[in-house]
């Protein structure tokens, strides 16, 4: 189990990347970790490059920004261009509904948005992504993410997000 993770969630404004980063951070807190989540965005509330960063560590997190990502989620071509060209060891997860398919050992393309649409709401795409990313890398436990979902949402919304999380988990098994 790694002691420290640096994660980049990149795409465009309105894709829910910051909420996604917050939920990941909240899950890590449940596991007793320190978390710093930062964000960078432009002046538009929709569209434009947007990025959430999450650092999870057993120890104190001194510098607050990601310097060497262990994991990337890319939801736009622009984000992919920026981060896929990095180290070939860094796993990059991306949405094949929104981006063209690429090949590479570190590239994990899944149709998150299409799967979310089938589930009933495209807003759950990020949860599918968090599910598969956590399952593949051991970032946080599924139970922690489920606990965060149940704390944040209730009723049908919570139910749908749990389903999304499980879809992500199932993708990892493939």
């Amino acid at each position: 189990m790694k002691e420290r993770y640096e994660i980049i969630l990149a795409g465009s404004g309105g894709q829910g990347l910051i909420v996604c980063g917050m939920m990941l951070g909240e899950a890590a807190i449940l596991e007793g970790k320190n978390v710093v989540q930062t964000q960078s965005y432009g002046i538009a509330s929709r569209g434009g490059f947007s990025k959430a960063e999450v650092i999870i560590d057993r120890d104190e997190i001194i510098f607050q920004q990601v310097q060497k990502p262990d994991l990337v989620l890319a939801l736009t071509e622009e984000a992919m261009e920026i981060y896929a060209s990095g180290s070939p060891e860094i796993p990059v997860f991306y949405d094949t509904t929104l981006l063209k398919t690429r090949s590479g050992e570190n590239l994990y393309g899944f149709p998150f948005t299409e799967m979310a649409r089938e589930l009933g709401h495209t807003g759950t795409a990020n949860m599918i992504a968090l599910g598969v990313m956590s399952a593949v890398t051991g970032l946080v436990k599924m139970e922690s993410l489920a606990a965060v979902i149940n704390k944040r949402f209730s009723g049908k919304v919570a139910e749908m997000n749990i389903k999304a999380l499980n879809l992500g988990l199932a993708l990892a098994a493939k």
Partner: protein
Amino acid sequence: MVETAKLIQGNQAIAEGAIYAGARFFAGYPITPSSEVAEECSRRMPRVGGVYMQMEDEIASMGAIVGASLAGVKSFTATSGPGFSLMQENLGFAVMAEVPCVVVNVQRSGPSTGLATKPAQSDIMQVRWGRHGDQIVIALSPSSVKECFDLTVQAFNLSEKFRVPVILAADEIVAHMRENFTPPAPGELQVIDRKKPTVPPEQYKPFEPESDGIAPLAAYGSEYVFHVTSSMHGPEGVSNNNPANATWKVSQLHKKLELYRDEIVLTKTFDVEDMDILLVAFGAVTRAARAAAVEARKTGIKAGVLQLVTVWPFPDRELAQLAGRVKTVVVPEMNYSGQVAGEVRRVLGPDPDIKQVNKFNGQIITPQDILKAII
């Protein structure tokens, strides 16, 4: 109930810190990157019996918190560059009329509307000298979510104790950052309330300092009826153009803070015991400096960090004492001109080698940026 760690944003911690400190009035005009302070207050103030007031602009916001404070309620506002500029006139009023209040300035890139969503530390001199007239101002600068909370409480305490406006000079990085944070239990942090008059109403002089140098402040609407003016005034609060009175008044505004200088000036140090290089930082950049010091030590360079928790009054003695041990001082800050580096030069004179690391394009200073100046 024991509070558990939550993922909390800096701006949210500022709002919660204010409520913890006893603030029950917020007036503001939301502006990036401070808007979440207003947002949080709009939700939380009504629940704690306080008032959230959305104003038409920042001039009115500052006026409203001065008024509310004079009515006896701990008050604050939050803004960024353009709004902070508009607040200067009424902020000066608060200085002259000795009205306790807290102004949160979440610094963003300028000049003018600049890069609205990007961080900067370029208001440091505006915080100090933004108003006309001679005065001292207290400004604190947080580097983490925890410090956003703690220093907001501290800002209210200093403000209440000394009857002065206090500025929380945050930056976009800490304001928008989220960290795991456990809010302190009630009573865990000290909360100071302003001194109230003990004399009968007819004997009350609103601007007459007691032996501690501070005048008690009654509340508007109470049995104490008093006059407040931004013009030169005597202990009774009415206009007074006598030169002797002006000498007394301007001196008193300075002396009441000079007297308590050591209580106001807060700093933190990291790895300074055996250092050869001193990094002087404040706000979020403290973290890059600390990380740079850790990295430098891996290459055998002994670097230490002085964090200016209080930016104004400038921690001159603390800096001079530490800088005496080193040949090189490095000042990283997110502005072009080196607003704090200039102060460091003023304090240390020409002897040490003072290097600046400046970034002013909305991007964050990294440990590597600082290391380049060290190695």
